[in-house]
């Protein structure tokens, strides 16, 4: 397809090139300059064919090495007995077997499930709700939007540091509530090993829900007005219109949002590091922290590589079906 289009695009240059070929004038510098312009055009045409590829090739090569090659290397490393130093002797799936024997890995995986699920759910709910509310021709909409979105400009480390202070039992929120007269209020999730992972959800939702709002709002503004007017003529109420017409038509936005939130959740490393550092103990560990600690502080490269491959597998398991549904949905929808 693109090849056909390309010949049309480069029409004139290519025609000249074909003409020179047909008349047997080789497009080479060495040929004596009988027909200088034709020769020049032929060269220019050649340049137009090869320059784009040449320009793109460093990126392609870099991507082949640093993305695909490195994934391959990590995959291979996960199949060796590597500890402190890489060891390139093939050892089958022993690292994976060892990984699945480690309780801490399952704690991390379960935490990712808890954090990912709740993070996505709450971001979706608050983001969609705020977008719908903001869509009601609100005064100072721009200012409100900016306020909801600014946490997205912050680093997860900054977010983590701020919430670590706010959720600090004894000084932060707890003291505020005591000062306000709620003497029995207690909120020590940050240091409670059963609840610590939920504090990560609180901070994560604070950081990312404004972004979800922005995406949904953009989607809402793209909804066809005439359908809505028609529904209003038919006497449908505003909530019904949202439920039956507007929100279903946001399907592609839902896919994008899910895609990005799932991606943020699986990669989450900074936020947990800054907020709980995986603690208390290892109770709020996630795979990204597990990978980091086993690879860089415990000298278990093979295990680290195996856990990284599991993270990649999780990303693919979420992204591939979503992407497939999205492209299919787009093909049907348009």
């Amino acid at each position, binding site marked *: 397809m693109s090849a056909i289009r390309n010949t049309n695009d480069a029409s004139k240059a290519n025609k000249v090139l074909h003409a020179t070929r047909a008349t047997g004038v080789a497009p080479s510098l060495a040929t004596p300059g009988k027909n200088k312009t034709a020769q020049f055009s032929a060269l220019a045409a050649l340049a137009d064919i090869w320059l784009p590829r040449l320009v793109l090739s460093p990126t*392609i090569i870099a991507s082949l090495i640093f993305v695909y090659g490195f994934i391959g290397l990590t995959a291979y490393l996960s199949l060796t007995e590597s500890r402190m130093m890489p060891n390139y002797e093939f050892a089958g799936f022993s690292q994976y077997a060892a990984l699945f024997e480690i309780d801490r890995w399952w704690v991390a995986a379960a935490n990712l499930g808890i954090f990912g699920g709740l993070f996505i759910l709450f971001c979706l709910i608050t983001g969609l709700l705020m977008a719908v509310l903001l869509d009601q021709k609100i005064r100072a909409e721009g200012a409100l939007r900016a306020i909801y979105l*600014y946490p997205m400009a912050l680093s997860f480390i900054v977010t983590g540091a701020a919430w670590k202070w706010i959720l600090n039992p004894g000084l932060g929120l707890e003291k505020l509530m005591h000062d306000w007269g709620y003497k029995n209020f207690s909120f020590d999730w940050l240091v409670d090993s059963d609840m610590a992972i939920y504090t990560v959800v609180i901070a994560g939702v604070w950081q990312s829900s404004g972004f979800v709002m922005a995406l949904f709002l953009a989607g809402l503004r793209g909804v066809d007005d005439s359908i809505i007017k028609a529904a209003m003529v038919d006497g449908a109420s*505003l909530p019904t219109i949202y439920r039956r017409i507007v929100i279903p038509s946001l399907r592609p936005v839902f896919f994008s949002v899910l895609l990005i939130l799932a991606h943020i959740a699986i990669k989450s490393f900074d936020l947990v590091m800054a907020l709980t550092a995986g603690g208390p103990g290892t109770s709020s560990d996630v795979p990204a922290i597990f990978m980091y600690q086993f690879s860089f502080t415990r000298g278990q490269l093979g295990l680290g590589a195996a856990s990284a491959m599991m*993270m990649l597998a999780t990303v693919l398991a979420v992204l591939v079906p979503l992407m497939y549904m999205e492209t299919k949905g787009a093909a049907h929808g348009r």
Partner: protein
Amino acid sequence: MAAKLPTLATPSFVQGLTLGRVLIYVLLILCAFYYLAPLYVMLTTSVKSLEEIRSGNLLSIPLNPSTYAWSKAWGTACTGVTCEGLAPYFWNSLKMAVPAVIISSLIGSINGYVLAHWKFRGSHIVFTALMVGCFIPFQVVILPMARVLGMLNLANTTSGLILVHIIYGMAFTTLFFRNYYVSVPEELVNAARIDGAGFFTIYRRIIFPLSLPIFMVCFIWQFTQIWNDFLFGVVFGGSDAQPVTVALNNLVNTSTGVTEYNVNMASAIIAALPTLGLYLVAGKYFVRGLTAGAVKG
């Protein structure tokens, strides 16, 4: 005239301030408080003394504001082993982010130009293959990368971090520029070709001059990503090239001595200032970057 239809966006201006309308505003303002509260808490805590922090609470107004915590955070606070404040790490981040942002944007621009207007057999596959770089969890490449940086003698240097950010930023920048350049009319490029303009002439004379808005989006997106990065910084930064996010994390998670919450909060704001400032100045481009990265990425 009585049958004038209310549109979705203006349901009730005609009807005045109904109960529903009030409820909407209350909810929106509550949300605004929720998002602003941490910023307020950070700012006020950073100008309180430790005694004031203990005697007051999160929302109490600072009675004796002082810049003590700020100067300590900038100049003398301890981040792990050294006590030089955040300043050196702040400069590390800047020295890393500026070149990495510029180079990765330029590469993205020229790549996007090729992928949008010089399609060749297989260019679609190349594009899709490049985009995978947006999706992978970076944990899956850091072990080989650490080894390669070591071999290149770039481990624990700012140059090494710049290289890493350029490589893993290219997928995003290419995506941005490609999606933008697709909207530049094909006829414009074809007309230039018929006039005999070559690959680079067309880029210099037609494409590049049209690119200012997308360069802004790309600069802001890349700057935010690179400035806020933690994983690459902590793995490849060593002690000399550590970016400010890593230093902040070390400072906040230091377990020795009394935790100085005011210094922690001042440090957090210092680490956030550049991206927050960009957001305030060029928020429109920031949002466009987010949504552009989101729609396809």
